[in-house]
């Protein structure tokens, strides 16, 4: 029997941080932030085209969740996927080269920003159709159970995606069959220009599993430690064979939905307020300094290191050649080896 969904406000705020872990979180979040800023710039220069959805503001979610996973666990998400790929330890060069549509990109330039995958890193995409990743992630969990592994799948989706019917069809099956999947709802308050309140009858999305007997919890998605704490509980639950779990991450996207966004649906002050008072990176930075786990100079050096990684990725993505014309015809079907 599932318990009633709860709002978890607890965080390890009072406990002392582990230096190594704290610095890793800081580094991982900063890498995503700087990578995304650079992607935005390359878009502005016409080097990246089509749709490009930046993850700036939401870095704590993937960073904290990734810390809960072990070898073989899978990750799947929608089109706002650059942060997830970096968190899965995919190479920033390969990700950026896919954004520029070049031969060295993760999909050889054929997928673009929204459609990237790495089987090696257990990252299953990168999906352009809102909500489609949810049943697919549920199917990955099905395969885990079927094969008898104790792996868990994290299926990420947005507050807007939470209104797609297939999400509920997935919830039902996952709960019915106790599938090891954690549904991570990244509630960044908006789906394009539509706020949660304008699209959802029940705005507390962590309650959306109630009628499927799925436990749900609301989490401060701007605090990497709160994310990790809730994530560990949820992943442990799923891994132990008890079935799915829902985490609603309260987070925020600073940038427009995609690159051209009229930004008329929210006030500048709202964005500024969150950036000034709730930024996940600034928040952790302040804690690192306060608890004397790092000095300003340590962090400056880290900043520099990350700047260099991102610059190298950008340079690589511009130097990489366009895919060979013959690639147009490859990868449509696999060869049949023997019948």
């Amino acid at each position: 029997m599932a318990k009633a969904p709860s709002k978890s406000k607890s965080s390890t705020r009072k406990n002392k941080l582990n230096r190594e872990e704290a610095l890793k979180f800081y580094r991982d979040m900063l890498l995503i932030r700087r990578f995304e800023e650079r992607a935005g710039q390359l878009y502005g220069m016409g080097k990246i085209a089509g749709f490009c959805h930046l993850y700036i503001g939401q870095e704590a979610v993937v960073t904290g969740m990734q810390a809960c996973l072990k070898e073989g666990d899978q990750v799947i998400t929608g089109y706002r996927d650059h942060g997830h790929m970096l968190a899965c330890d995919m190479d920033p060069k390969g990700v950026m080269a896919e954004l520029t549509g070049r031969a060295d990109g993760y999909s050889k330039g054929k997928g673009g920003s929204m459609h990237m995958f790495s089987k090696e890193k257990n990252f299953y995409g990168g999906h352009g159709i809102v909500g489609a990743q949810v049943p697919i992630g549920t199917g990955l969990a099905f395969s885990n159970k079927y094969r008898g592994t104790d792996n868990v799948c994290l299926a990420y989706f947005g507050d807007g995606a939470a209104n797609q019917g297939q999400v509920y069809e997935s919830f039902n099956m996952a709960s019915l069959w106790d599938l090891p999947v954690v549904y991570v709802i990244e509630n960044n308050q908006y789906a394009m220009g539509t706020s949660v309140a304008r699209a959802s009858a029940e705005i507390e999305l962590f309650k959306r599993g109630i009628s499927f007997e799925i436990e749900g919890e609301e989490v401060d998605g701007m605090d990497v430690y709160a994310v990790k704490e809730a994530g560990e509980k949820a992943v442990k639950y799923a891994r132990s064979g008890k079935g799915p779990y829902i985490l609603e991450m309260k987070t925020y996207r600073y940038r427009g939905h995609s690159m051209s966004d009229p930004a008329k649906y929210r006030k500048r002050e709202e964005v500024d307020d969150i950036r000034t008072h709730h930024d996940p990176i600034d928040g952790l930075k302040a804690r690192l300094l306060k608890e004397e786990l790092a000095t300003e100079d340590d962090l400056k050096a880290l900043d520099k290191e990350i700047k260099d990684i991102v610059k190298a990725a950008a340079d690589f993505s511009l130097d990489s050649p366009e895919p060979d014309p013959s690639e147009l015809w490859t990868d449509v079907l696999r060869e049949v080896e023997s019948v």
Partner: protein
Amino acid sequence: MAIDILMPALSPTMEEGTLSKWLKKEGDTISSGDVIAEIETDKATMEVEAVDEGVLAKILVDEGTEGVKVNSVIARLAEDGESASDVEAAAPGAAEEKADAVPAEQSSDQSDKDAQVSDKAGPPTPAVSTLKDPTVPEGTSFVDTTVRDALRDAMAEEMRRDDAVFVMGEEVAEYQGAYKVTRELLQEFGAKRVVDTPITEHGFAGLGVGAAFGGLKPIVEFMTFNFAMQAIDQIINSAAKTLYMSGGQMGCPIVFRGPNGAASRVGAQHSHDYSAWYSNVPGLKVVAPYDAADAKGLLKAAIRDPNPVVFLEHELLYGESFPVPEVEDYVLPIGKARVRRSGTDVTLVAHSRMVGFALQAAEKLAEDGIDAEVIDLRTLRPLDTDTVIESVKKTNRIVTCEEGWRYMGVGAEICATVVNEAFDYLDAPPTRVHQKDVPLPYAANLEAMSLPGTADIIEAAKKVCHV
């Protein structure tokens, strides 16, 4: 070293824009992520956010300036330790160098892009001559209108005329439409008739069908037809089949509309042409106009039609302007093709955006002495085969042009019909121009190779003319 801030592009096709507002002034300290300015095109507004940190040393383009070229330097930042005056005094040389460097690096891309504009992804110039629509009375005046506004006007006129008509879809109301096709409808008709839905295509398509069964005339906008695949069960199993299954009791007057086919560099999941899919289904009507006048006249007809109509628009045509007749109530018949250019040597059949390429191809073919007739199908179901057969009887050759794939496609249907009904008139095998048989790739070069364009039509036409 000073850092240049460049005019960014909002979309791959944007070449220039208006720098509407500076939100920072010279001397302000800037951190990455700060909004420093707002820029604008006819389609959208965007905030320019800083990537680098420093002090805004110099603003080079005043606010309110129009026609600012993408990638031109609009301001300069002084980095840590530099003073603003250092930048002003010392930077021009360095910055000039960089300003040169960027366009130089761009130029190869740019020429690729230009190549696309003339042939593939870019919009065809509507300058190509088109036969007058015989249904428009002599002496009618015309107003240049974008396809986007023509569609909007059609909806607005029909909503004024009949209060059972309403529009719903994602971002159609407050956001004014993801592609601004429903611009200002909310202001005129209010939230009861211009309804923002959650992202739930299957749900709202089904709800629309129910509303139509209940006596309303819904216009259901799909942000793009790619997302209508979520809803296709309701479109086909509920909207298209119920009249038949109910022995004629349950009519479903509904329009499913939105952009269909390839946009620009958005990858396979967002670039699918569904013409052949919907056209396969009895119980549906399928309309796919090319120019603004047809978009308007046919959308009005679709809204009035007592049947479910799938109305396929094209994102890359939305911003194109065409003359629209100033006629009180401009409604065109569904199911009638239009001969856009008359010719004697070969028939080019096209719909939607391919019509522009076919017209361009015809102009070029004329230079080589080949006189092509161009038929704009306008409606795919019911298909106006009479117009096509009549033309083939005259030209004895046919090339079909579609943006989608060849297998089981629109061209296949037309060629089969021609073979059936005009076999003895053919001087060459019917030939098809179409997208390459792969999911549409993201990379610029592969995308251009994959999509059919003017050159492909010319080549096919020459082949059937044995030139």
